[in-house]
């Protein structure tokens, strides 16, 4: 049960984090014309760090012997 839960958390987070890193952090940038609200980007990273913090807590909780 614990292993299954860990695997689930790990896979879900990993695929979303991979997606965020590839789609938002890489790729051709067309500087002159990008109209992407900076506030929105901050929001994504804010959510991302919240997710990471949450995952971290679950990890330590499930790993405590």
């Amino acid at each position, binding site marked *: 049960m614990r292993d299954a839960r860990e695997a689930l958390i790990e896979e879900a987070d*990993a*695929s*979303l984090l*991979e*997606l*965020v890193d*590839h*789609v*938002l*952090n*890489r*790729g*051709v*940038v*067309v*500087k*002159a*014309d*990008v*109209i*992407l*609200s900076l506030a*929105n*980007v901050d*929001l*994504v990273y804010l959510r991302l760090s919240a997710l990471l913090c949450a995952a971290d807590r679950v990890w330590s909780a499930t790993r405590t012997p």
Partner: protein
Amino acid sequence: MSPLYLYALLAEAPAGAPPAGLAGEPVRFVSCHGVVAAVGDVAAAPSLDASALRAHDEAVRRLAAAASALLPARFGSLAPDEDHLRDALQARVPALKAALETVRGCDQMTLRFSSTESTVAAPASVPAGAGPGTQYLAGRRAALGDARRRPEVARILDALAPLVRAERLEPHQTPPLLASAFHLVRRDALDAYRATLASVSGEAGVRVTASGPWPPYAFAGDLA
């Protein structure tokens, strides 16, 4: 006039019916000084959430499936019209064409290396009698990290090297993550790449997590 949402840059427009974009709109192709921009006519910038990121990636993947040379655009690239897009790309066309030839026929595999040990890598050796400048630079090099300095990481990278057309390495400072490697792999060599990775990923001291195949997101970033 609706703005254009940029999905990718291509060497040539793919044959066949244009795939659907992020909002279900048909993707069309705009010729820009010798490269082809895949764009969609959208009402506004997409909202920034996980489903929009997935939709962007899926649209890029549909394009990549039909094209042999494609550079994905970063999420959220919006141009007011075709002329603005051409102007923004014009100066970078030679670099874009070279990048398109590098990625032709290839997909990207992403490897994340993390340490399974709590020990910190040994500090970089500083030559005896080194001046303050050399010491500073050695310290900086140690802080930035070199993925290949870890022999277990280097062994995995070396085993994959014959199947890799191009490699980008990114060191990480947040333990346990050691480094990320982005590999351009010919589409017909992906199975061999996975098999080789499986055969070498049991290295002690390091865990490697692979994702992909991806469109070559990591091979377009320095064109900004």
